[in-house]
């Protein structure tokens, strides 16, 4: 049962093999039994899940079921949920209960999906290992000594361990794709503006984008169809119709032109990961695709530009946490300045403070031109590299990450080496493009992700290209032993 895909579970519900209430209880029981070893959830919403599951069963009886009706899902704890704690894995929001629902949460509720709980993450989505959580690190179900990636590490670990058929994530520099890769699941970051950011706690507003983490591309197509769409409450949300992403899945891909950026296969890439990616590319050749070497020549600058732009936006966005209107307040403030400074120093963790400091510095008088403007100019060069490449090719492929999952603590004392674990994912956010990560094999029994980058609003094509690979391979069906435990 637990290794069924979301699509298979939806079919089972439609056929009446089980009710949503039974399915929901099944996953809640798995979470209670297995999650103490993983720490992938911050909050379980059991009572609310029961209410939603019963409503879903009623709705189905009335013949009103939508594709996701009755399907249990997990939400990253960055999406506001009315009446259920939303912490962003920060001490700052440890007791925060949002007064409204995020657009994405509303959309799932309208579809009749069931909220199992809120997943662990790096604090305010800043991190690549899920070690920056106020609630402790999440462990990777493939190997409990390793990290699941981040920042959507709880969502990725939960789906990989089959504690939820699907989960949401957010991706500012790789935070859906990198944990999806390290946990051996499918994750898609949509085009910037495709999914509303209303009620999604802001980190870097010109980069943040929500998307699904699932077992398969077919599942991601179902979930993204529900998440995407125009919302006037997010002024950057794009008013364009949402295609039914499941429709394009079965299209053949013969003749597909796949661009391979030489910068993504050079220094810094683990040679064993490179072998796995090369084998995946051979599969695509067998499916009739053509491989074309391309160059994204400013790639090496993506990291430096990102680590100015994202912290700059973060320093501005996180100025709202002042200990006055909501969130943590220090004890016995001497005066207003002391209230601000100690509430923020005590409420934020080390990485969040580091990024606020970098951003504040980059935006301060005398440095703005050299850092922030310069980074924005490089951002345009990076975007233009992609646009030029898409004149020659249909999609771009490469590794999602330079190595497989690393050990807990291995990089946590060295922010710079942590930042380098996102070298293949961050340029996509700077450009605002959609990109997918799918399981492509293993190195030392640890999953490897293949990244597929598309042109703007080509989520349908990405999922089609990923799905065709998943029709001829079974990497996405391989389970971590942990998920089979205690059967």
């Amino acid at each position: 049962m637990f290794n069924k895909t979301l699509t298979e579970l939806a079919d089972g519900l439609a056929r009446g093999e089980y009710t949503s209430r039974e399915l929901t209880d099944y996953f809640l029981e798995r979470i209670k039994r297995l999650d103490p070893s993983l720490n992938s959830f911050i909050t379980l919403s059991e009572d609310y899940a029961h209410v939603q599951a019963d409503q879903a069963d009623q709705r189905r009886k009335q013949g009103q079921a939508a594709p996701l009706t009755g399907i249990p899902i997990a939400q990253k704890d960055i999406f506001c949920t009315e009446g259920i704690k939303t912490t962003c894995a920060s001490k700052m929001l440890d007791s925060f209960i949002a007064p409204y629902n995020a657009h994405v949460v509303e959309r799932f509720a309208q579809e009749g999906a069931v909220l199992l709980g809120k997943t662990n993450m790096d604090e305010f989505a800043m991190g690549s290992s899920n070690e920056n959580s106020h609630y402790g690190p999440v462990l990777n179900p493939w190997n409990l000594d390793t990290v699941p990636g981040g920042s959507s590490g709880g969502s990725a670990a939960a789906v990989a361990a089959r504690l939820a058929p699907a989960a949401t994530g957010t991706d500012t520099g790789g935070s859906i794709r990198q944990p999806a890769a390290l946990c051996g699941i499918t994750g898609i970051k949509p085009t910037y503006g495709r999914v509303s950011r209303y009620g999604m706690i802001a980190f870097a507003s010109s980069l943040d984008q929500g998307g699904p983490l699932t077992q398969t591309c077919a599942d991601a197509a179902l979930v993204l169809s529900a998440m995407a769409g125009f919302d006037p409450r997010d002024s950057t949300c794009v008013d364009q119709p949402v295609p039914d992403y499941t429709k394009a899945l079965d299209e053949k891909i013969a003749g597909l032109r796949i661009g391979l950026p030489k910068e993504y296969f050079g220094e810094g890439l683990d040679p064993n990961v490179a072998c796995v990616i090369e084998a995946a590319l051979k599969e695509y050749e067998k499916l009739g695709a053509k491989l074309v070497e391309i160059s994204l020549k400013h790639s090496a600058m993506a990291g430096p530009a990102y680590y100015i732009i994202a912290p700059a936006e973060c320093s501005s966005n996180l100025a709202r946490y002042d200990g006055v209107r909501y969130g943590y307040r220090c004890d016995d403030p001497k005066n207003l300045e002391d209230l601000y400074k100690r509430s923020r120093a005590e409420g934020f963790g080390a990485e969040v403070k580091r990024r606020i400091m970098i951003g504040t510095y980059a935006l301060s008088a005398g440095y703005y031109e050299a850092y922030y403007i310069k980074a924005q100019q490089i951002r345009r060069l990076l975007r233009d590299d992609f646009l030029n490449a898409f004149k020659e090719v249909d999609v771009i492929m490469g590794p999602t990450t330079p190595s497989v999952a690393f050990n807990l603590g291995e990089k946590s004392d060295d922010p710079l080496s942590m930042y380098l674990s996102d070298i293949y994912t961050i340029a996509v956010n700077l450009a605002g493009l959609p990109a997918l990560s799918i399981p492509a094999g293993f190195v030392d029994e640890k999953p490897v992700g293949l990244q597929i980058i598309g042109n703007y609003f080509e989520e349908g094509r990405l999922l089609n290209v990923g799905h065709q690979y998943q029709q001829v391979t079974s990497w996405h069906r391989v389970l971590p032993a942990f998920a089979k435990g205690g059967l």
Partner: protein
Amino acid sequence: MSAKPTFSEEIVAKVAHLARLELKPADLPPYHEGLSRILAWIEQMAAIDTQGIEPMAHPFDLAQPLREDKVTEADPEGKQQRKFQALAPAIAAGLYLVPKVIE
């Protein structure tokens, strides 16, 4: 980028103040060292010629959509206000409380 003053502990202290983050004197050296390493890596950007390149603030070169300036969620009974203020650490009579600012 060569004309900038050296990134010093004084600058770290000033930035922490601007960001309203309390930084104890003992924390200054490790912060300074950590941030210096990151900034040195970021400095690679200086090698790229960006003369005449328009800065890109946003993934799409779109104009900001504006809406009419009118109340869309009226709250005559203050229900929303009470709901939002229930999250505050300290309130009184519908106001947020902070330590005294003016003697």
